[in-house]
Every structure is written in C-alpha cells, then in structure tokens.
C-alpha cells in the first residue's frame, strides 16, 4: 500500500465530498428548515405525511411505479426469452432496436407519441378518416399514456438483464428438469425464471425508480399529481415562497430516500440470492432452441410489434422535423428544411453548448474515473469500496435532487453556479457511474502480470499506466467515454435547474420550443438531430466493441 495510492484516494474523496456529499447534505439540511420561524425541525416532514395532497402524490407515484414495472415485465420476459433462446434471423437488428430507448432522451418519445397518438394525431385522424370513430379517442392523456411511455422507455433495462440471465444459465439445470419430466411451462417457471431473478432484479429496480425520477413526462401529459412533478413545480415556480420551496425539497428528499433504499434492498437481495452452479456446462451461447414454425412466426410478430413502437419515435420526429404545420393531417404535406436552417444557422448556440458541456464533463469524467477504477481494482486502499458505493449510488439519485442541491450549495457560499462551468460539473457528477462501470470492468479484465512485468523492468507507476495499462484499457474506456457522452448529452432534469440565459443545451431547447406550440417543428428537428448524433455515437461504440458496454451496463454478469 504505497503512499501515492493513499494520497490519490484522498484526492478523489475530496472531489466526491465537494461534488456529491456537500451539495446533497445541504439539500437534506434545507429540508429541515422551518419557513415560519426560521428555525429547524422535522415539521416539514410531518406536514408532508399528514397533508392529504402530498400523501396522494406519494401513493400515486408508488402505484405508477408498480404499473410500469408490471408492464415492462409482462412485455419484457417473452421478449428477452425470444432474443436469448430462439435461433432466428436478425438477432442483432432486433436487439439493437429494442435497446434504442435507453439512449434516446425520454421526452423525445413523449413528443413523438403525442404527434402520433394525440387527439388529432395520425392514428385518430386515420380512424376518423375511414369513419371508424366519430370523435377522437384519448390514447395517451392519462395514466394509460404515462404507463405506456414510461414502460417503453424502461423496457430495455428488463430485456437486457433477463436476456443475459437466460443466456448465462447452465443448460444442464434445465435439461435435468426436462429429464425429471417437467413440462415446458413448468420448467420455465420453476427453474429458468428463478435462476434469472438476480439479473432481472438489477434491471427491475431501475425501472421501478424511474417514476420517482421523471418529472417531465407527467407534466407534458398533464398528469401532475406525482412526486417528482410536484417537487419540480414547488421548487421552480415558488422559489420565494420559502415554505413551498422547503416542501418541494422534502418531496425531493423523500423520493431520493425511496430510490436509494430500494436500490440497496435490491442489491442486498441479489447478493443473497446469487445462484452458483458447480458444473462447468455453460456453453458460450447459452441454450439456443430452434422453435417450431408457428412459435417462430409468433416471435417475429411480437418482436416487430415492439420494434415498430420504438421506431415510431425517430420516424415521427423525423417527419415533423422536415415539415411545417403538421397538424390535422395524418402525414405532413409541407416539406421544408427551414427547421434545420433555424437550428444550425440562427441559433447554433444550443448545439455548441451541448457539445461543450458534455465534452468538458467527459474530460472530468476520464480524469476522475480512470484513477477511481484503478484504485478499486488494483489497490487495497482503505475506503475504496465506500468510494465505489457512493459513486454507484449516483445511479439511483433523481436528477432533480442533484439539480436542486447544486443550486442550493453553489449559489451563495461557493458561487460556482454563477459561472457556466457548473453545467459540465453537474453533468459529470450525475453521469459518472456510467463511465466508471466501463472503466472498472475493463480494468478487471486486464491481467495484472503485464503491469507487474513493466514495473519489474524498471518503469515507474505512471509510465506503466500510460505505456501498458492505458493502451490495453483503451477499448473499454472508449466505450465508456462514448456512453458517458451520450448520457450527458441527453441530460435535462439536472440541467434545467442550473441553466441561465445563453447556457441552454439541446434538450432544454427541445423542451422550451415544444412549449411554445407553434415551434414544435423546431423541437422535433432538435430531437431528431439528437437522435442522429446519438446513433452515430452508438455506431462508434459498436465498432469498438459493445461487449464491454453490456458487461458494465447492468445485468451482464452470471
């Protein structure tokens, strides 16, 4: 245990303390402030749990979470099974398509579905056109729409986890069940599914937490009685009404606590439930079945159905982006490049900001993430597990909590929020786990003997790192870099609290333009541009090698 490692750890802890622990503790402290007396106390919390309105929003959110989890599970289990087990054509294409929503900004989907499924959207107009219905059907404004949109967005987490689980099960378990005479269904429910619980839970917890994080989708759909939306409204509409502000902060803290405890619970549960097979029967591919023609065509129909829903997002946004005044007609009729001209030539600031902020965040991410990964994997510095733990927890923190805590912590005392550097810093803090996971898992795969050889031959630690470790790590790190960039690029729930005039990023521009109604072509063009950029970045990842991505993403481990 060298002194260098310890001072490195101390330095990294300092950064964490400054960017994570300090702001979040300010947030918690603030929630105990009493507006009336100027004192402190738990009055706000008592009010929160006694006020029928807040309680209702809390229960609503729990209910929504349950519904979203149920929906994603019901649709995700067969999908994951098909993807992992059936031998079929187009596996790569379908997998990529179904995973697409992870990288798309959540609100882009909302806008696309409003254009498509709205009261006078494409579907309703077509139905009315052929005379099937007289008055438009309400597809999405309401709980059903919220569940649909959030489920589609979160579906990849379930599918990714489960399909990895299905692949990694030792086939001999299932074969044993079959030999003992268990039917297909019985085997599936008593052997296969239980073996997959750990990998399922890893994704499920993220799905369940999403409604506690996403304030924007409910707001756009006009369903505001949910915890994050109420917190957003309380904080961003009432910042001089101190009591309201504190109540909003209480709502943020409560949802953070829910998120973190569920996250930890799932982690503990998974740890306990982890199954270990003694045999070494796992084939590289897992168990792959050649299904009957009927089952196979059913599987295709099912996959195509989901893929179409996902593809609607880029297609609808693309149509809206290249047209103007697409209302009251099922498909646009007036084609133009005007929207893109406006974005690219008249207000290039948004694109510039997006690249600048995400780019700087990325540089911070690399400068911080690599040493952390090194510390965690290669050293025995005390407290390294805690470091890993704190950073991983950031996955569970709602964006609104980070945004609000930053504006509280860095406005007066340390006036960082008055300079634009706060934007990349916040993006860095929020998206750090994404980079760390990649760096971490590629470090694990690097044989230490190579580094040892270098050190034995007389190279110093730093030289070894740059000459040996870094080039070997490059693939994993690059995937991490691109993934981090994508996630920082589409971030809105933290940035929306911190931006000032001139600091708007693309996601914020989309949100603002959509709200100004007439400009939804511009909003769509911005969203389309984001999708294109994201897609190009995804292609880059796939060139470099996506295995690292999958391993680090969530549920890749067996």
């Amino acid at each position: 245990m060298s002194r260098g490692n310890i001072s490195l750890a101390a330095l990294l802890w300092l950064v964490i303390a400054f960017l994570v622990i300090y702001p979040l503790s300010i947030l918690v402290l603030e929630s105990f402030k009493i507006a009336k007396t100027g004192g402190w106390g738990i009055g706000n919390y008592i009010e929160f749990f006694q006020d029928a309105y807040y309680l209702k929003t809390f229960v609503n959110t729990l209910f929504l979470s349950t519904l979203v989890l149920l929906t994603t599970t019901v649709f995700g289990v067969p999908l994951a099974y098909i993807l992992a087990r059936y031998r079929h054509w187009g596996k790569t294409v379908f997998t990529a398509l179904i995973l697409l929503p992870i990288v798309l900004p959540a609100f882009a989907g909302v806008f696309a579905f409003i254009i498509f499924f709205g009261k006078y959207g494409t579907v309703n107009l077509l139905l009315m056109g052929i005379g099937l219905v007289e008055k438009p059907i309400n597809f999405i404004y309401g709980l059903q729409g919220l569940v649909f949109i959030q489920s589609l967005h979160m579906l990849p987490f379930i599918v990714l986890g489960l399909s990895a689980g299905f692949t990694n099960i030792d086939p001999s378990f299932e074969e044993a069940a079959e030999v003992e005479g268990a039917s297909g269904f019985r085997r599936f429910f008593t052997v296969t599914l239980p073996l997959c619980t750990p990998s399922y839970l890893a994704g499920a917890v993220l799905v369940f937490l999403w409604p506690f994080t996403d304030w924007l989708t409910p707001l756009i759909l006009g369903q505001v009685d949910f915890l994050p939306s109420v917190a957003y409204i309380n904080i961003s509409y009432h910042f001089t009404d101190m009591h309201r502000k504190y109540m909003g902060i209480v709502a943020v803290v409560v949802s953070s606590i829910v998120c973190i405890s569920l996250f930890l619970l799932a982690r503990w549960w998974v740890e306990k439930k982890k199954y270990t097979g003694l045999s070494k029967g796992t084939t590289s591919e897992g168990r792959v079945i050649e299904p009957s023609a009927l089952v196979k065509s059913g599987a295709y129909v099912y996959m195509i159905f989901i893929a179409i829903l996902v593809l609607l997002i880029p297609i609808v946004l693309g149509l809206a982006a290249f047209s103007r005044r697409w209302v009251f007609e099922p498909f646009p009729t007036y084609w133009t490049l005007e929207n893109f001209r406006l974005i690219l030539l008249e207000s290039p600031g948004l694109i510039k900001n997006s690249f600048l902020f995400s780019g700087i965040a990325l540089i911070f991410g690399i400068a911080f993430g690599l040493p952390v990964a090194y510390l965690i994997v290669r050293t025995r510095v005390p407290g390294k597990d805690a470091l890993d733990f704190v950073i991983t927890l950031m996955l569970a923190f709602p964006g609104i909590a980070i945004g609000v805590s930053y504006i509280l912590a860095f406005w007066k005392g340390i006036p960082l929020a008055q300079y634009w550097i706060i934007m990349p810093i916040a993006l860095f803090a929020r998206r750090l786990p994404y980079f760390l996971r990649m760096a971490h898992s590629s470090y694990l795969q690097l044989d230490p003997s190579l580094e040892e050889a270098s050190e034995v031959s007389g190279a110093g630690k730093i030289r070894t790192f740059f000459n040996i470790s870094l080039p070997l790590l490059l693939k994993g790190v690059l995937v991490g870099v691109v993934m981090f960039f994508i996630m920082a690029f589409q971030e809105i729930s933290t940035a929306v609290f911190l931006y000032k005039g001139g600091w708007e990023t693309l996601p914020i521009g989309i949100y603002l333009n959509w709200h100004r109604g007439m400009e939804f072509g511009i909003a769509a063009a911005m969203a389309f541009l984001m999708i294109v950029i994201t897609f190009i970045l995804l292609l880059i990842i796939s060139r470099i090698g996506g295995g690292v991505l999958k391993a680090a993403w969530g549920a890749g481990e067996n």
Partner: protein
Amino acid sequence: MAGFRVVDLPRKLLQQEVIQDNEISIFFKCDNVTSKEVIMRKRILTATIFTALSMALMLLPIFSAEVQAADKIGWVGPVYKELSASLTKGFKAYYKKTYGKDVDITFVRPGGWPVCLDKVRAWGGKPDADIFLGAGAPAHEVLKKEGLIVPYKPKGWDMVPADWHGMKVKDKGDLWTCFAPWIVTNLYNEKVLKILKLPAPKTWNDLLNPIYRGNIVHTLPYASGTMHEAIEILIQAFGEKEAWRYLRLLAAQLARFSTGSTDTTQLVARGEIPIGIAQPQMNAMAARKDGFPVRDLLPEKTILVPEAVALLKGAPNEAVGKIFLDWLFSMDGQKYVLEGRYFAARTDIKFSVWEKEGVEMAKHAQKALGVDSFWDLKVDFIEYDLELATKRWDEVNKKYEYEIYRKWGELKSSLFLIEEVEGEINAAKAEKMDVAKAEAKIKEARDLFEIDGKYAAARLAAAKARALLVSP
C-alpha cells in the same frame, strides 16, 4: 449482477470474458483476432487524438469570442419567443449601426409572470439581467412596491397613453411603461369545435354548459399572469362569492390543467383540447399566421393588460439598458414589437401605413383587430382596481391552488354526484313522488359545493338526498 458490482474472482472473469464476447456478437460486431488487435488499438489511439484535437479546434472560437469584449444586455421576462427573437434581431442591428459595436443579448424566460417576478425577487438587489421585459401592470406594481425597479423615462414615452378605459398604461413615476398592450381573451380551435359539432362559447357563462365538459383547458394562476388576471377579472366583475362559485364549476369542465399559458396555446392550436381560457389577445393572431385554425373570443367582461418594461435596480449594464428602452419606444423598435407578434403601443401608429412600409405582421394585426391602431379598439372593460389586485396577488393564487387545483379530483366527483342526484330528483318529480326533503337536501349540497367549497361534505349531503328520495 455487474450493475452493482463485478465479482473479483479471476477465474470467473475468464469465463465471463468468453460469454461477453458472444454477447457482443449478438448486439455489436467485434473482432477477436489477436493479430488485428494491435493495429486496431493503434487506430483507436490515433482516432482518439484526432477527435480530441478537432474538439479543441471546435472550442477555440468560443473562447476567443469571449475575449473580444462586446457590450452586453440581459433581459428577463415572460414574453414569447417570437418577440424576444424579433427584438434581439432589431436591437442588434440598431446597435451596430448607431455605435459601430456588437451587443450580446441574453434573454431568460423562467416561466410566466409570477415565476419571472419570483426570479427577480430571488436575485435580491443583484440581478442577473438589466431589463424586466413583459408582464402586465400587477407584476410591475409588485416590483415597484418591493423596490426592485428604478425609474427611467425613455424617449417616445409621451407617445404611450397614460391610461385607457380606466386601466393604467404606464406608471406616473416612470417606473414602468407599456410597450405592447393586449386584452385578456379566450382561445378556441374552430376546426375541432366543428368536428365535435359544438358552437363557439361567447360568454363566461357559456363555458359552464355541460356540452363543453372535458374540452376546456387552463393553467394555474401562479404559472401564468394571464390566468391570474382572468381570475382577478371574474372576482372584480362578479364579486368574490360568485367568482369562486364560477371557478369551481369551470374547474369541473376542464380536461386538465396546462403547465402555463404557452402550453394552453399549443394544446388549443394543435387541437388536443379545443378551448383555452386566459390567453393574450395576440396569440390567436400569431397562431393564425402560422396556419393554425384558432380564433380569439373576447368575453363580455375583460381588461386591458399593458405588457410593460422596466429597468431593474442594480442592473449591471444600465447604460445599454437605457439605450434599449429608448430604442424600444422609437418607431423602429415598435415595428420589431409588431413583427414579434405583439401589438405596438405608440398612439401614432397606423397598421395600414406600416403595411405599405413592408411590416409583415401589420396586415395580420389589422385583420385580427379590425381597426388601424390598437387604441382604436372599442371594447367594454370592467372597472379594474389595480391596487387591490396587486395587494391580494399571492392570496388569490394560493386560494385557487389549495381550494380548487389540489382538490380537483374530489371536486369533480362531488359535482358529478350532485348532478346525478339532481337528475334522479327531477325524474322522481315527473313521477309525482314526494321530493320536498330530497330537494332541500340537494340544494344544501350545491351550496356546500359552490359557496363553501366543501366538496366532501357536499358529496355526503348529495348521498343523503339520494337516500331521502327512496325513503322520505
């Protein structure tokens, strides 16, 4: 389980790697050939360096641009994007022409009037902008009362009337001046109403007709100044009791609450909900210009809103701020106001003249208003007590939120039950049953609902009325 932690057993790792590479082939293409690896890594390294360099090149102009000191000005306020874009364009051109220098303009629109006002309050005496751009008289009166704005009399100030039909159009102490007047209206989508076979609602009371249930939208008074003004109009025109009764009944007609008045506009323009309450008058003009089939509705009781501008106290760029104000009230500036889809405020403006001078929006403004200048409009306004409105600004917003918005679900179910029981009583009456007791009880329920806003109690009373109907 790598989502949480990767197990650190080297054996297991080796196994894992094999599996992962196969997963790669599912999701992404990846080559495992070791001899290629080295070349590949070199390429990646080169690509990385290249990317980093090109990114640095991209960033260069940004930093160099900041070195070159241009004059600066910041606006904060609730004006729409079209206006801020038009004024930015106009003022930049004017500044360049007059001072031979560029001016950097930042504009923030944190939300509707109340939100903008709160933003300025939150800044304390150290504003992050120079000009409060937009919002009606009550917002500016609050700013004045709290000492957040300072007086300035721009050139051309005399061309704006001091008051109109009893509404103050500019402050006597030069603290705020109206640059774009408008009237509080409602908005409807004529195409959608036609599809739904509904007539356009002409008056406030028309909106309570059950045929419109679920086809109306408005926002919360704290999210939008226009909505706040609409409530204030109702209170001042119909009296406190009647207004709150009306608002409760109107709330039961809503499809939903929107997040702001711009959200209302887009919902109506796109037909998602055909009738929008509390809209600035020029919204219909702007939306029609963009090809949306919407029209405004001047309700029988309404007011003028003097969209005003003021210089913030402690403004970091006060001198540029004053230049902007002078320009805003010049003929040139006022043209950019109209091009920004707001009505211009000077009395010496004729839309017909401007149309000849090539101001594109002049034609649309004339068509929307039916007169040649905004001040030629003949409307019947209510007597508006600005002082009273300013004083109870927060109180009204809060009352609406706590008594109507937060109990919206309860409110609706209560009213629907009352209506149901009323229907049953009428049916019973037709069958010549004795309904006297039930009728008295349901009247009590209505009063509890409309006057006291006690929705749960009203519901209970309605249930009792129903019971009385069966066994009097």
